[in-house]
């Protein structure tokens, strides 16, 4: 006997959740399709080698297994790497435009805490071969629209650019260790500890003041842009400001700028982003639901240098939020149940087939107990809450009304009856 057979971090999807899941997926895929994206899929298993040098995913977080040839495999921990490789394999010419969208499960063996989901359902897009601010703008716009289309109004995109901090730090002679520590403090907006740490470092006072301003570079785009312009110490930083300003202008043109705020405190310590990166938030939902950015160096690992930008949505987090806010599309299509006595079998199946031909849900059961008992059993079952139950006897349909079974016409689609 198998009792209590569950694994931490993995769970079943109930029928209502699965229904909403499918509906949302279809809606998003047709949205991406209207922007020219092709839906693709990559294998659930990947070679361990693909991820072994990737700093963004700690080796401990990978589910590893060994195949019959002794090759070490992992359960796909990320969608972007395999898709980048696929684009590199299928489209060897560097300047081709490739637009892919996908829906996939990814797996992370998070060590703690135990109840964190390890099977994550992601939907996203990857746009290859275009390095323009318009491309970044399209990717951000689709991230915003993905939530808006599902009735989520309170959407925020937090837009940053890893270049701003990196180009500043390139000018300061910091050891990798010092850089890493400062990055961590900046990402946590831990100004107190930055100040204490900077005291130990041999840096010019004006540079120290500059670093202390980095964690506060967030908020309304126009204000932040102004602040950023005043902090530039080299041409590359100025270039970053122009880039991000152009992307913001693009979003203004297409009417989505009001959803965007800036945060220049992002670093690329734990990811492969080279330029912009962004996170998508929903008000009152404590964790980000979208994560994306530009990763111009990744494709080169597969032999084809090619700029790229994309994002992924954590679909189950979005569904959890939509459930709380009653935004989920519910499966409430009425279903017809026909219960028959043996001589009426042919008529029952014929009536059911007629309903199905009109895309209605129809089920047929033989009557085993009394009609009342059969009806009660069905009504007790959660899955038959919205069923219309008919009883077929001697060619006549009956339906229950006030605890009495009255003769009725043969079952028809409700829309036709009304």
């Amino acid at each position, binding site marked *: 006997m198998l009792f209590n057979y569950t694994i931490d971090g993995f769970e079943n999807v109930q029928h209502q959740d699965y229904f909403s899941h499918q509906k949302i997926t279809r809606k998003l895929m047709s949205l991406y399709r209207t922007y020219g994206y092709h839906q693709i899929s990559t294998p659930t298993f990947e070679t361990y080698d693909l991820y072994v040098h990737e700093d963004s995913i700690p080796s401990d977080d990978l589910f590893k297994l060994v195949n019959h040839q002794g090759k070490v495999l992992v359960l796909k921990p990320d969608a972007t790497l395999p898709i980048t490789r696929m684009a590199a394999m299928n489209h060897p010419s560097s300047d081709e435009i490739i637009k892919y969208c996908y829906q996939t499960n990814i797996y992370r063996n998070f060590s703690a805490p135990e109840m964190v989901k390890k099977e994550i359902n992601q939907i996203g897009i990857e746009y290859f071969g275009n390095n323009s601010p318009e491309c970044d703008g399209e990717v951000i716009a689709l991230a915003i629209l993905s939530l808006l289309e599902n009735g989520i109004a*309170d959407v*925020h995109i*937090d837009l940053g650019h890893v270049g701003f901090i990196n180009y500043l730090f390139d000018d300061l002679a910091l050891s990798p260790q010092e850089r890493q520590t400062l990055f961590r403090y900046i990402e*946590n*907006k*831990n*100004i*107190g*500890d930055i100040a204490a740490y900077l005291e130990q470092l041999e840096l010019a006072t004006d540079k120290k003041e500059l670093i202390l301003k980095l964690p506060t570079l*967030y*908020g309304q785009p126009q204000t932040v842009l102004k602040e950023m312009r005043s902090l530039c110490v080299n041409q590359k930083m100025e270039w970053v400001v122009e880039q991000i300003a152009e992307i913001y202008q693009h979003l203004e043109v297409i009417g989505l700028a009001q959803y965007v*705020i800036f*945060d220049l405190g992002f670093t690329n310590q734990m990811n492969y982003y080279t330029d912009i990166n962004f996170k998508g*938030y*929903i*008000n*009152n*939902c*404590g*964790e*980000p639901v979208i994560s994306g950015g530009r990763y111009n160096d990744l494709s080169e690992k597969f032999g084809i240098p090619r700029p790229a930008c994309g994002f992924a949505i954590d679909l189950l987090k979005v569904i959890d939020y939509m459930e709380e806010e009653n935004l989920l599309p519910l499966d409430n299509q009425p279903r017809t149940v026909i219960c028959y006595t043996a001589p009426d079998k042919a008529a029952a199946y014929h009536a059911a087939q007629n309903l199905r031909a009109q895309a209605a849900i129809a089920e047929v059961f033989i009557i085993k107990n009394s009609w009342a008992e059969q009806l009660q059993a069905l009504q007790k079952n959660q899955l038959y809450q919205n069923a219309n139950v008919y009883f077929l006897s001697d060619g006549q349909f009956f339906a229950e009304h006030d605890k009495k079974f009255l003769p009725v016409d043969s079952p028809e689609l409700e829309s036709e009856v009304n």
Partner: protein
Amino acid sequence: MVIRFALAKGRVARKAIELLIELGYIFEDYSEKSRKLIFTDTTGTIEFFLVKSPDVPIYVEKGAADIGIVGKDVLLEHPAQVYEMLNLNIGRCKMCVAGFKDRPISFGKKLVVGTKYPVIAKNYFHTKGQLVDIIKINGSVELAPLIGLSDCIVDIVESGNTLKENGLTVLEEICEISSRLIVNQVSLKTKHELIDPIIKAFEKQL
């Protein structure tokens, strides 16, 4: 919109509530003996609740609270994806290795450590390259070396009186501990207009 605080029960919460009152918020229904779980200020813009300190980071990370006030020891022991915005400099103490004075920590021999903070202890001894067995204890940590359960302990030391009374002494200091103001990463952006003044006000009090 309401800003929710998660406060770690104990002296840190008392000081944090004092700070909030000094900032001009009035909590009519709050008293230390109250059994209510959530307290709201008279203007309805601030709410706070008291939880066990190790739970504060998770409440803030998941967005059940916008702001949390909790000791650095807890943040080191239970790392969370939050913004650690202010060092409030209250509840100051030190994370230390303590043991018997005449038995210093010897290198090259496996050490048994009793502690409430297994993650901090493990990280500290691993960076030193010292072999250790860690025994997680939930309270009265000083007892462990006295009855031979462990060679030494890792714990927070404020005055050092408990150690002294039990014949123990600080052998090594690991780091300074004080209370931190942490903020949910989404709230800081989506409720910026409300949270920013609160943080600024706390900053001024320091």
